[in-house]
């Protein structure tokens, strides 16, 4: 089989793709892309949207035992990666185009993840209270009353 392009054409294409790759890599590093592979809560405030949440988490009762991902992501590996990817996509899109609801509100799916995370640690203590009700959209969630344990409204 004869390769369809000349060496010169391939060189041009390689240079072009290289520029693209370099620009992409720079953008990724500049945007602190690698920090998203960590569990550091600071990474969640990279884009500053979460500054109030981060600031109040620092002062909250849970900050010594739980970071952002401990409550906002599932604890099992595969669901965790899926949730991270889905949230990462929505957050990037929202922050770039500034087309999200203000003030930010948790979505039903993420609310369920949060509730399950509460039970992940406190389930043994409260299983009589919340038996079978966590997946119902109208169920009372832990944070309905304990709204400031993670991060409260900031003044």
């Amino acid at each position, binding site marked *: 089989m004869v390769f369809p*392009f000349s060496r010169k054409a391939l060189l041009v294409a390689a240079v072009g793709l290289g520029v*693209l790759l370099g*620009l992409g890599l720079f953008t990724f590093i500049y945007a602190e892309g690698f920090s998203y592979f960590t569990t550091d809560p600071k990474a969640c405030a990279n*884009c*500053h949207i979460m*500054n109030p949440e981060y600031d109040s988490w620092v002062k909250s009762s849970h900050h010594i035992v739980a970071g952002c991902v401990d409550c906002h992501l599932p604890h099992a590996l595969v669901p965790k990666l899926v949730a991270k990817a889905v949230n990462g996509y929505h957050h990037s899109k929202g922050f770039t185009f500034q087309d999200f609801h*203000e*003030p930010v509100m948790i979505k039903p799916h993420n609310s369920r993840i949060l509730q399950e995370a509460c039970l992940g640690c406190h389930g043994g203590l409260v299983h009589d209270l919340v038996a079978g009700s966590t997946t119902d959209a109208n169920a009372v969630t832990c944070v309905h009353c304990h709204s400031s344990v993670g991060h409260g*409204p900031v*003044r």
Partner: protein
Amino acid sequence: MTAKTSSTNGNTPTSRRPRIVILLAILVGVAAATAVLAGLLVNIFQRKQEAKNPYLRFVDVTADTTDPAEWGKNWPRQYDGYLRTALPTRTEYGGGAPSEGILPPEKAEKTPWLTRMFAGYAFAIDYRDRRGHAFMLTDQESTKRTKERKQPGSCLHCHASIIPLYRQTGAEIAPSAPPAEQLQKGFEAIGKLDYWEANAKLEKSGHKHPVACVDCHDPKSMQLRVTRPGFINGIKALKAHEGIADYDPNRDATRQEMRSFVCGQCHVEYYCGPKTTLFYPWMNGLKVEEIESTYDNYKFEDGHRFYDWKHAETGAEVLKAQHPEFEVWNQGTHGKAGVACADCHMPYMREGALKVSDHWVRSPLTNVNRACQQCHHYPEQDIIKRVVTIQDRHFALLTRAGSALVDMLDAIKVAKAANATDAQLAPVLEMQRKAQWRLDFVAAENSMGFHAPQELARILGESIDMSRQAQLAAVMLRGTLAQAAPAK
């Protein structure tokens, strides 16, 4: 170039075309991808800059920069919100200006008893619903209360950005006095002038603006600070009553307290003159009867007990309440929980990567999501319904208190017509003063009951009781007089 090299390889011209197309497609694809990436990079850069520089000082502002437009060059987001206070807003009970440039309706259209209560006072001739901050000065200039009645210069204490004029005037009167004393002297001197004389002086000084940035913000650090002498003196007297000596809000208050104090500079009960310098009656506390006791124990320079005006129908020496939002909020559940005025009336919002407080000061009912739902996680309609329920109940009780007041006035007029003596009428008129003070205190407060529903209901309950007591006494007096009169 590609075409040339391929033709030297001996390919037929027909097979050249797809190759060029593929190459062009790659070229366009890579170019598009690069453009998108560059766009993303610039976007990220922009957001990072926003977070890094909350503001840039393009112009220098000082304690004498009263023009908000100058501050707006440095803080355009806050200035935008400030400008929006010119937009008409309306809730079930508040506002009502149908569009920009048109005055809101007279309050007496909804509550006609106001005109009877204010008989003989300027509020009986013109008392309209509110407009936004942007109109505070023009509305004061256009009301019949200043156009057709004589008013003191101290009205400008709260309706204009007047502090630089106070300082300037104080410096002329006492060039060697410390700044705080100069401010006080200027405040007293301008307050003594006739309203229009003070207004002309303000215009000449170049500071003729409604409430401006400099009234609440330190021009160097942008931190909140209070500037109005009336408030500084008032809160000092209140804290002294609570056992705290030499209180200075700019030194001793927390940031969260300041987020209410700046509003409390004006949204309060006060005596505006002209018989003495403007003061906030907080020496015995902020509750309605504590303020009443301050007034009852206060003597003017001529030795006469404090009163605002003589009621035209009965001759009672009565009190006039101004908008005591700060005092009433202090008695309510939000105030007790440490929720500041700004938390609901200027909630935080975000623009890009920046957190800014909304300087479009307005009713939280027009901004429920940011104002209420930060703490109250219920559907917006439920929240509005709850507020309106409180307000409807409050309005019903207020109307009832208004009817009681009118019945009392009618009964006193009849007793007077039957030639009751001053001595006979004295206890009745004293009761009118008390009943009217309570009703006016509640009616003048801008929240239709919401700032402290139970406290306001308590005050209205007292007012109704006192009006009926006075009415009963007047009716009995009339009966006594009729019996004593010789039968014809």
